[in-house]
């Protein structure tokens, strides 16, 4: 074989720089031996993920052969993500994941970054030479494309792909997939869709099906995207990216509970994807399923240990969830959760020592945790300490503001909390996601158990109203308002039902009750999504009272 290569005078291995990453010395040495006998010359060996990243920071590497399982510390997927994310490894360089797993379950983590190929152990020289040889040939053939991607010259990369398509039929799939991604990257959804349609016209290919669903979502055709993704998952129950995308579509349709179920199923199949756990935590949190959210944040934090996606926000969210769970629960279980929250914050500050805002954010949560455990003196002490610090900052971020308001509510300073939220609403009036958070807190400044109860009563009231039982509706809304008296939509629901009662049996006392309800909403910020409904009902009431 070696003689053949020399005869052709093209030794594809000779010019390239190789990096072998494996925690077993024997394996590193035998891999180097095999590469040498294939004609490779520049070969570096390292034992750990950290040293692989270090090496790639200062040296050019053409081919990385990285074992998935590297013992303690980073695994192969972590190394791949960090190298690609930080652009330490060019797109024109190959990353090969060496794995003992024939099934790729273990490796199916965050699929944002995929290796160029998998090599399954056991590996012998003949096999390595064939496999690597054809991958290197592919790399060379596609170099005009990958070079432009490395230069971030995407339009030129697209041109190169289009040129290569008729010339390189062997790499058609790679070219089509890359074209689809490139078109999406430059925002040319119409051409991306055409690529996926062309591929699908040829036959049913799961990657093209998924690509098409991405375009549907981007074009806000949520119903179509959701149906199409359900069909894809029906055919490919092991296709994790389809689950992630389906959850996004369901969220957009307002079906947050279904979205959570889909993510739970995906996380069960493939629990090691940090971004998926994070997505699950966020959706479960929004659904007030704080147990699930807490568990998913725990996973997110733990998976972050070696990951490029690690962030202090995950620790803060975990502590917030745990604080919600422990609040008012003075059993051992509550104390345990409160401790876990404080520990998570302490670990965060150790891990991210350079971020100066974290201490303050951490104190805001600590204050709530202590208050929730009945340690009011400690809570009060922290509040005294942080209030002047916060006042000294002009224009702090929305997250800090909303979280501080939450603490103020817990510390029985509702007036200050509401004032702060109104200021924030005015300041962030063009940011719907921030406004949403502000509104939720204004409406429901209570623990999640009470929130769930009030939401259930609200649903009962709506159901009673729809079936024409006005008295039952009034009772349900009133019970809900006993828990969350400032809830804008709930107050307006009640007013609407009472006005209907008045239509049927006019009675001045009803109108007085309506007026009392509307008066409680006087301070409703203009940016609140219920504000227009509030004004409309107010006008209607004035008309009735004249």
């Amino acid at each position: 074989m070696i003689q053949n290569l020399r005869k052709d005078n093209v030794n594809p291995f000779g010019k390239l720089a190789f990096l072998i990453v494996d925690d077993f010395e024997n394996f590193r040495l035998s891999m180097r031996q095999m590469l040498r006998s294939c004609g490779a010359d520049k070969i570096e060996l390292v034992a750990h993920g950290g040293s692989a990243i270090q090496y790639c920071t200062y040296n050019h590497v053409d081919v990385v052969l990285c074992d998935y399982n590297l013992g303690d510390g980073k695994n192969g997927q972590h190394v791949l993500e960090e190298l690609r994310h930080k652009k330490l490894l060019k797109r024109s360089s190959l990353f090969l994941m060496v794995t003992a797993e024939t099934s790729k379950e273990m490796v199916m983590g965050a699929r944002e970054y995929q290796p160029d190929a998998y090599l399954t152990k056991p590996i012998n020289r003949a096999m390595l030479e064939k496999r690597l040889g054809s991958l290197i040939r592919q790399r060379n053939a596609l170099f005009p494309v990958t070079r432009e991607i490395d230069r971030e010259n995407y339009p030129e990369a697209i041109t190169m792909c289009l040129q290569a398509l008729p010339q390189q039929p062997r790499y058609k799939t790679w070219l089509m997939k890359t074209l689809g991604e490139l078109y999406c990257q430059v925002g040319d959804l119409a051409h991306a869709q055409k690529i996926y349609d062309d591929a699908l016209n040829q036959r049913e290919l799961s990657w093209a099906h998924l690509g098409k669903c991405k375009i549907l979502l981007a074009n806000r055709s949520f119903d179509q995207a959701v149906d199409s993704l359900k069909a894809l998952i029906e055919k490919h129950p092991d296709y994790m990216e389809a689950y992630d995308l389906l959850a996004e579509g369901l969220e957009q349709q307002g079906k947050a509970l279904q979205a959570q179920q889909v993510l739970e199923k995906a996380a069960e199949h493939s629990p090691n994807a940090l971004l998926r756990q994070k997505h699950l935590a966020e959706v479960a949190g929004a659904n007030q399923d704080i147990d699930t959210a807490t568990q998913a944040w725990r996973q997110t934090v733990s998976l972050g240990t070696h990951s490029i996606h690690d962030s202090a926000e995950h620790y803060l969210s975990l502590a917030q969830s745990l604080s919600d769970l422990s609040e008012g629960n003075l059993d051992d279980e509550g104390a345990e959760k409160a401790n876990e929250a404080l520990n998570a914050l302490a670990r965060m500050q150790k891990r991210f020592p350079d971020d100066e805002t974290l201490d303050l954010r951490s104190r805001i949560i600590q204050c709530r945790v202590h208050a929730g455990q009945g340690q009011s003196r400690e809570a009060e002490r922290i509040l005294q300490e942080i209030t002047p610090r916060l006042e000294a900052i002009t224009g702090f971020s929305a997250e800090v503001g909303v979280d501080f308001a939450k603490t103020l509510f817990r510390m029985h300073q509702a007036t200050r909390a509401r004032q702060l939220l109104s200021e924030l609403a005015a300041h962030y009036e063009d940011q719907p996601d921030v406004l949403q958070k502000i509104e939720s807190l204004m409406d429901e400044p209570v623990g999640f158990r009470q929130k769930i109860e009030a939401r259930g009563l609200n649903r009962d009231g709506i159901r009673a109203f729809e079936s024409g039982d006005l008295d039952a509706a009034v009772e349900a809304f009133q019970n809900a308002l006993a828990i969350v008296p400032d809830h804008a939509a709930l107050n307006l629901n009640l007013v609407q039902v009472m006005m209907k009662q008045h239509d049927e049996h006019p009675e001045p006392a009803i109108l007085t009750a309506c007026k009392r309800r509307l008066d409680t909403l006087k301070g409703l910020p203009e940016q609140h999504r219920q504000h227009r409904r509030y004004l409309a009902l107010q006008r209607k009431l004035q008309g009735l009272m004249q």
Partner: protein
Amino acid sequence: MTDPNIDFSMVLASAVHDMKNSLGMLLNSLDELRMEHEPALVGSNKFNMLQYEAERMHNDLVQLLGIYRLGENNLSAHIDEHYVPDFLAEHLARYTPLLEGLGISYAIDAADINGFFDEDLLTGVLNNTINNAIRYTNSKILLTARQEDHELVIGVEDDGQGYPANMQHSGTPDFKSLDFKTGSTSLGLFFASSVAVLHQNGDRTGRIALHNGGTLGGGVFEIRLP
């Protein structure tokens, strides 16, 4: 006494997974041993048998896991386009040290074509079939690939005695009909057939076919994918 909390098939699957990885390490060491002691080991029957049997066990375990996932409804074909001659060459390469050790000659006769299939699933099938061919051949093994009636046909041929008459069919072996007494359970054929069925295009479905003859006059295994 049975503990309802134990999901026995899952326990089995994890054990199989572990054994498979162990065997992978063992095969790796065997390859290294062969390289280090090339002249002494080249004709050693004992060493060849060691490697062959280890390969066979490894393949069986891979298949067992595949069938487990199939039963869990957690296995589907992710079909992509691949350049067939490279695919065959890469998989035959894994066996070349063993084939040379056993004195079996090998060749590939593949058309210059792209084919649509799930690479991982086909790898399992090919490994098993090559393994089987090594067991029953006299002296030669041939891998073939061609396009025929809008189907990709991948074949493994040998110059042995061929398949017995009762095995020569092109249907799907029924899992229940697997005979555990004869020593040859046809587990490999069941797996190959299941993989073929996972490959669908429109209303057409993949299948396997066994017959005798071919270029070498022995057994011919074919997997036909739409």
